[in-house]
């Protein structure tokens, strides 16, 4: 489970990046966070991964305070970043092997890696190719494979579908649905309203660091998510909707 309690981040230059965010992503739930660039989505992920300290409030992973015990908390979370270029001189398998080892998975075989790479839709001929020859989409698939190999109960995704072609995007959604079925808590920051609508159990809208609206899948039925997105991004911040 991923949880933030009144989480606030004010940067050194005075910019309020996250403003009292309280959120819980339950096991078996996909939460999609929308917001314009600079709304605070990535900062929320950075706070959950303890890359930056919060100004106030708490971030918890599986109930573990990420500031008090960051290493223990990180054992329970996988992360997929936007635009990760990985190691260009390494092959896909070498990259996957290195990050798997960092994640504590030391007994995996080449066959296991091949299965995961296959699952994310990477062509077999690309497994042993150096990453410098990969397209952005192929790298993104490898990034997702790295998160899959870790097999943590919580998944943080920072705009993971950027660079994916429609086919790969569809495969990615299937992977996320499988994760949900496995009982993982998935938090995804995204601009991809179309894909999020297909899989999200809940969506949230962030504006200037504040959660201005949150809706469940049921509440979204019959609503035009694109219309809502535009509406909430343009409006002055209001109290967070339920």
């Amino acid at each position: 489970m991923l949880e933030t309690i009144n989480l606030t981040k004010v940067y050194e230059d005075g910019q309020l990046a996250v403003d009292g965010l309280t959120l819980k992503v339950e096991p078996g739930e996909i939460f999609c966070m929308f917001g314009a660039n600079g709304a605070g989505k990535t900062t929320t992920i950075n706070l959950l991964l303890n890359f930056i300290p919060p100004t106030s409030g708490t971030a918890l992973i599986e109930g573990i305070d990420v500031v008090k015990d960051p290493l223990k908390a990180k054992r329970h979370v996988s992360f997929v970043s936007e635009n990760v270029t990985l190691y260009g001189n390494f092959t896909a398998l070498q990259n996957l092997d290195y990050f798997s080892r960092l994640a504590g998975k030391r007994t995996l075989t080449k066959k296991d890696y091949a299965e995961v790479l296959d699952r994310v839709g990477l062509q077999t001929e690309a497994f042993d190719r150096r990453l410098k020859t990969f397209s952005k989409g192929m790298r993104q698939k490898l990034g997702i494979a790295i998160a899959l190999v870790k097999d943590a109960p919580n998944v943080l995704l920072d705009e993971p579908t950027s660079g994916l072609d429609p086919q790969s995007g569809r495969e990615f959604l299937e992977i996320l649905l499988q994760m949900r079925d496995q009982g993982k808590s998935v938090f995804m920051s995204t601009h991809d309203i179309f894909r999020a609508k297909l899989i999200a159990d809940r969506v949230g809208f962030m504006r200037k660091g504040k959660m201005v609206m949150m809706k469940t899948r049921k509440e979204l039925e019959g609503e035009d998510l694109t219309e809502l997105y535009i509406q909430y991004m343009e409006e002055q911040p209001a109290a967070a909707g339920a």
Partner: protein
Amino acid sequence: MLRDIIKKEILDNITSPKFVFTFLLCAVLILLSVYTGVTNYGAEQKEYTAALALNRKNLEAQPNYQSLAYPGIKINKPPQVLGAVVNGIEEAVGRVAPVNLAADANLIDSKYSSNPVFAVFGPLDLMFIVKIVLSLFAILFTYDAIVGEKEKGTLKLALSNDVPRDRLILGKAIGGYISLLIPLLIPLILSLLILIIAPNLALSRGDWARLLLVFLMFFLYLSVFFSLGLFVSARTTRSSTSFLVLLFVWVVFVMVIPKVAVLTAAQVEPIPSVHEITAKKDAFFQQVQQEGQKGFREWSQKNSADAAKDPKGYQDKLKKFIEDYQQELTSKIDANNAAIERDYQMKKKSQQNLAVNLSRISPASALSFGSMTMARTGVDEFDRFLASVRAYKPIYTKWLNSKMTQSINFQTGEMGKIKLDDMPQHRLEPDSLSKSLARTLPDFVVMIVMIIVFFVGAYVSFLRYDVR
């Protein structure tokens, strides 16, 4: 986990084009420099042996002792075997020190003076390659060690796992250093093989110990730039910025500080020019010469009566007078020159020490001074050789004065043939390893302190590094 990080770092480095480029360039430059050094040493050794034989032959060919007074004899500086690796100032300073009755002993006939083109580019010895080329490679291997991972997004990805930051930086440092050493170690081992199999190169046990200490100094020097690279990489947010900062620091360390230190020392502690010193010595020499002529005239007038009365006794008396008087005048000149020289050397030493200590802020200077001292091709060895020649000069002049007066027949004007059996020989005791080590201790300390400071700086900076 540490092993995985080290392994990844090595693999990432050795599969990069920069590694291939570094390895090839290192191999070519190191092997070329050692081969050239060994060949040069062989040629210098031959030249030295030939010069000794020629000197001896020239001495024996002299008709009498008087002709040994001017231009005197030549003392050749032996080439240093480790000059093949650290050339030092060998080519810049003279190789021959003429010793005669008048002039003060000094080294002349340097390789640069005989062929000034050499001076334009300087020697391509191993020390130069380490100091200039390999230190740049150390920067090339580290400028993006941290900041590059941030740009690639791999730092965030790595730290999203339960990876302690201290272990990550340690792994990167160890792996990176090993990667830097690989292209250096292989050609160095091959160079050692060249040194072992080279036919004209006989390294003693002491030389091997010195060589190993020189190599240790090379590794420490590269470690300074390696840890500096890590430090700057952990303090910047763009790899291009990191590279520029490192390049700037490199220029300051390698080019600016050593030169500025020498110029500053010259301003703070000025010394008289060589011309001033020579003029002072010449003036005194002329004064003594006039005194001598006057003294001889006075003695002749005083004893002129004896010449007619007892020619044999007069001749013996004259001989004795000339021998004593010449010795007295020469001692006077030597004492005066020694006093001027002592004062000059003291001032020069003080300026030299100031320049050395100021320039030691730079690891490049520490490397230069340290490795030259170890290889016996530096200023210390030059000073030691010159001091030994200057110490030898009065011994030689005393012997020559005595021989000159004893061999002359004042009645016939005949001069006896020279015999060199009892001629005192110039000796230069080799500097002991412990003495050299004591002199290089500050250089070792400077480099070790820099490594610690930069590495701790990198370590602490990385613990607080903004990975976003």
